[in-house]
């Protein structure tokens, strides 16, 4: 299955999806050394975004969150690609741009696809196309 998306940061990556409908504050909710969600009240608590395609609504909170995305990349703990389902926010866009992480936005994401963790996704940001390569 192929889905159109909007390119925010170009590039192409393949990985397993980790999906949440809750926003992330990259400064206070994630351990940038491991990519693990460290905030107890987040539904992804204890799970890691490392090496995966992070599908989430948007970043919220501290403007320094952008550096935490870069810190994850420097620690090889970053997602391989990022999909924003609500808003391509400035924190995520700038963090992915400096870290060379492909980033896209999908309008009405969940109306189009029932995104769930474990889907294998190909994110071709440059050509604005997502391919679901394998169902869960």
């Amino acid at each position: 299955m192929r889905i159109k998306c909007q390119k925010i940061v170009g590039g192409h990556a393949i990985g397993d999806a980790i999906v949440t409908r809750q926003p992330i504050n990259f400064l206070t909710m994630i351990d940038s050394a491991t990519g693990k969600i460290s905030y107890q009240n987040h539904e992804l608590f204890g799970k890691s975004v490392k090496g995966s395609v992070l599908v989430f609504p948007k970043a919220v909170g501290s403007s320094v969150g952008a550096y935490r995305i870069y810190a994850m990349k420097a620690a090889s703990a970053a997602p391989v690609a990022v999909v924003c389902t609500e808003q391509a926010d400035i924190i995520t866009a700038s963090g992915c741009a400096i870290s060379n992480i492909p980033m896209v936005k999908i309008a009405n994401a969940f109306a189009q696809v029932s995104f769930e963790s474990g889907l294998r996704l190909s994110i071709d940001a440059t050509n604005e196309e997502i391919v679901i390569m394998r169902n869960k």
Partner: protein
Amino acid sequence: MDLTRREEQLLNGAEGDAISSAYRILSAVGEATSASKLVPIEWAHISGVNYNTIGEAGRRFLEEFCLDAKVQVKTTINPMGFDRDNTSSISQDFIHKQMSIVNSYKSIGVKDSFTCTPYEAYHLPKTGSFVSLAETNAAVFANSMLGLLTNKESALSALASAITGKAPLSELRINELRTPKHTIISSLEMDSELSYGLLGYFAGKEIKASSVSLNGVQIRGIREAKALSAGIGTMGDLGMFSLNSESKGEVISFGKSEARSTRDDLNSAERGDIILFGSPQLGLPELNLLAKDTEGKKFTKPCFIFCARQIHNQAKSTGLVDRLERTGAKFMCDCCICLTPLVTKQNADSVVTNSVKGAYYMNNANKLNVALQDSKSITKEYMT
């Protein structure tokens, strides 16, 4: 977003890697916010100065990035991790890493402001100017109280704007998009600065837009405006409020029960071992109010007042610093509550503060419990 031919060249590395990276960031942010083009800005304010916020990866990034960059516009920067004149409780390792970050920023020509309230300490561009402010309370304050036009920038997008002198023309830089389409009607008696902080935090969490109208709310002084701006900026998308605009679109109520549940989200202790004033850092009007409320009394717990060095110097010359120090309170310049290495689990189980933003960071970053109380009740309860 369309780039000019010159901007394309700079993106492709005509003037080196730092400028190229900056244009990469601005291009991504331009796409993200549906900007049509880049516009010149008059002022940038950068966050990501405290070593505790950007860490080793950030420190190394800046070390390299700042080698071939220079700011193109007036650029102020956020607080760092400690007071430059009072480093006794800070480890040599932390000082070394923090100063490396400070030196990187200084090398590109920023002002050594170390403040989250640059709007109180510096001369501002004229109303209607485009600016690029990363510190969230400053972005909200500038849009809402000063008529400056900024998006709620990230640490990296503001850095990119500082060294290119440009920012995407989008969202809150476009007059029509500043008009709120969401309204909060408050029925709460706004009896302290804490009420404003709680309203702000509630608005930031509830409203999924960049601008909101707050109806039934009056702002009597800068303390309320700062508490509101900081609360709004702590979480969410909001980068601007206006007061009592014609209500249309989505309307949400804010009353006693909303204020109580917002406070319950952030309040995790009954009492605190350390008293913290100043997120945002306090300005002269707030120092004056605090001096009045504490005259002739002494704090029963350690009390820290965070403020910008420029403000401290002004307050020193009028005797205000001495008056407040007679209460036992200690001033901390250059730094602020958020992610400070000064207050940790080693020296306290819990803190008391009147700052909603400070409470959020003490809870979630410093992992301390927080008693959230307004200034008047703190000075009543914690003084003899």
